[in-house]
């Protein structure tokens, strides 16, 4: 036999007991050919392009699931940032394009489509401004559309005018979806150093450097890593812990690499990247926080958490990089609070604060993610949080992001509940000392010295 029974049992145990899965197959689509000055015609073109190109995505993913016995949890689509198309039309409200994307997503049977997006790190064009103004309405009237705006890069610095505009957009989106626990905000990401090939929602876009169509795959497997760390002796050294995580990350990533190859070949499109991210789900045990706790920190958020997370993130990359030559996307452990049962417990017990989460984002992917805050948090405070997170990304040349959920009418200790993969979020308290001056200075936080690399 090519394989030992132990190897076969290990794979089956990972799938059946430790929730090994491929988190997403994301089809990237360029919408450049859909441009028209008439927004209704453009919306029709967008619908046609998405439904004709992605018709086979879901059936193919389901076929791969059956043949390999590996669950493929999400099938998704990322499109050209819509602000780039919007430049061709003078329409003020870009919601018709969001509605076309939403309908197309429903037709092909996917749960999220990303790309209602703009890149404004250095300046806001007229089309960008129209897109940003359309976000609250678009997210309130669609189910599947995700929006993202890039406000900073290491090369350009931070556009503080855009930071303030996005803070207001977060509040407006929360108000527009207040009757549904601010769910619009779960579909809105504000980035620093956005990547062009991220397969994960809500921040997926199809960048301008990409081919017409491409398949990107996001792996998963916090449950598998947790089980491996738990199986080690309590006195195992951190070198041993790192080694065990690395070996496991290799195996997890190989599954993603195999699925990426097969999906691209069978769809007849370019193979893009494999994203080496540990993406938690609300399911018990499928938690990044619980990996940190398995490493020996009593409760995620306690002293030692940032070090443990840094070790985990680094070991996942080292193992994953051996398993695929197509690394890309965000590639790092995710720490979304609402989507991780261990994070929720840690936040509710007071072990995990917003400030500790911010520190954690400096050593992992991707940022302050799915964090509920009091609904009366001032816009300047939200802008300050976005600016802090963007500064971590810009100075450290990494991607960071903010996905905050202002809980309308609720205070710290309350709860937002979305169900499904988005989970539920305890409302966390926010430091009240932002003041109202810093965020309103506007202008551009200059590109850091580290940007001068040529």
């Amino acid at each position, binding site marked *: 036999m090519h394989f030992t029974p132990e190897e*076969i049992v290990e794979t*089956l145990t990972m799938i059946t007991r430790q929730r090994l899965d491929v988190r997403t197959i994301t089809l990237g689509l360029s919408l450049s050919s859909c441009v028209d000055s008439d927004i209704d015609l453009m919306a029709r073109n967008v619908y046609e392009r998405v439904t004709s190109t992605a018709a086979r995505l879901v059936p193919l993913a389901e076929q791969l699931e059956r043949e*390999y*016995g590996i669950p493929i949890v999400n099938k998704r689509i990322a499109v050209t940032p819509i602000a780039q198309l919007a430049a061709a039309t003078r329409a003020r409200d870009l919601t018709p394009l969001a509605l076309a994307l939403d309908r197309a997503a429903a037709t092909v049977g996917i749960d999220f489509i990303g790309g209602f997006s703009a890149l404004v790190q250095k300046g806001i064009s007229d089309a960008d401004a129209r897109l940003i103004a359309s976000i609250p309405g678009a997210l309130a009237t669609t189910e599947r559309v995700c929006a993202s705006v890039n406000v900073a890069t290491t090369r350009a610095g931070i556009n503080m005018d855009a930071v303030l505009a996005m803070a207001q957009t977060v509040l407006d989106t929360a108000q527009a979806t207040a009757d549904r626990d601010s769910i619009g905000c779960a579909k809105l990401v504000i980035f620093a150093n956005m990547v062009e090939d991220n397969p994960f929602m809500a921040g997926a876009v199809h960048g301008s450097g990409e081919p017409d169509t491409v398949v990107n795959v996001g792996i998963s497997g916090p449950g598998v890593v947790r089980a491996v760390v738990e199986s080690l002796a309590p006195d195992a050294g951190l070198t041993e812990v790192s080694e065990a995580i690395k070996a496991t990350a290799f*195996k997890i990533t*190989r599954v993603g690499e195999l699925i990426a190859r097969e999906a691209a070949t069978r769809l007849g499109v370019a193979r893009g990247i494999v994203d080496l991210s540990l993406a938690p789900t609300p399911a018990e045990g499928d938690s990044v926080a619980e990996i940190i706790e398995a490493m020996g920190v009593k409760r995620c958020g306690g002293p030692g958490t940032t070090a443990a997370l840094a070790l985990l993130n680094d070991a996942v990359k080292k193992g994953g990089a051996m398993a695929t030559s197509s690394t890309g996307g965000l590639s790092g452990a995710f720490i979304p609070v609402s989507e991780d049962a261990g994070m929720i417990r840690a936040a509710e017990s007071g072990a995990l604060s917003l400030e500790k989460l911010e520190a954690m984002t400096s050593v992992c992917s991707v940022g302050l993610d799915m964090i509920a805050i009091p609904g009366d948090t001032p816009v300047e405070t939200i802008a300050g949080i976005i600016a802090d997170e963007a500064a971590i990304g810009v100075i450290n040349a990494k991607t960071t992001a903010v996905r905050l959920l202002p809980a309308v009418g609720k205070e710290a200790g309350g709860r937002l509940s979305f169900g499904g993969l988005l989970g539920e979020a305890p409302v966390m308290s926010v430091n009240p000392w932002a003041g109202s001056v810093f965020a309103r200075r506007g202008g551009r936080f200059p590109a850091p010295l580290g940007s001068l690399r040529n």
Partner: protein
Amino acid sequence: MRTPAVLTVLGEDRVGIVAAVSGALAEANANIEDIRQTILGSIFSMTMLVTVDEDHLPLVELQSRLAEIGRQLGLQITLQREDVFRFMHRV
């Protein structure tokens, strides 16, 4: 198309498991390349390396037939393409 696959069977031991599984494979023109089978306590465990003749019967249809046998005999039977194990366990 001939597709290598790994078949695993797990469940309470009883008469006729090997006969039922190998009978379904023969009917599908799937060749058994290797078998390892053991009883741990009263638990029957078998792993097989098989080559599925997909021109005769596609892999997913063979999966359905085996799942039906699994239901009848109270066993967990999985059939997966072999490359998932190769990718995970071989550099």
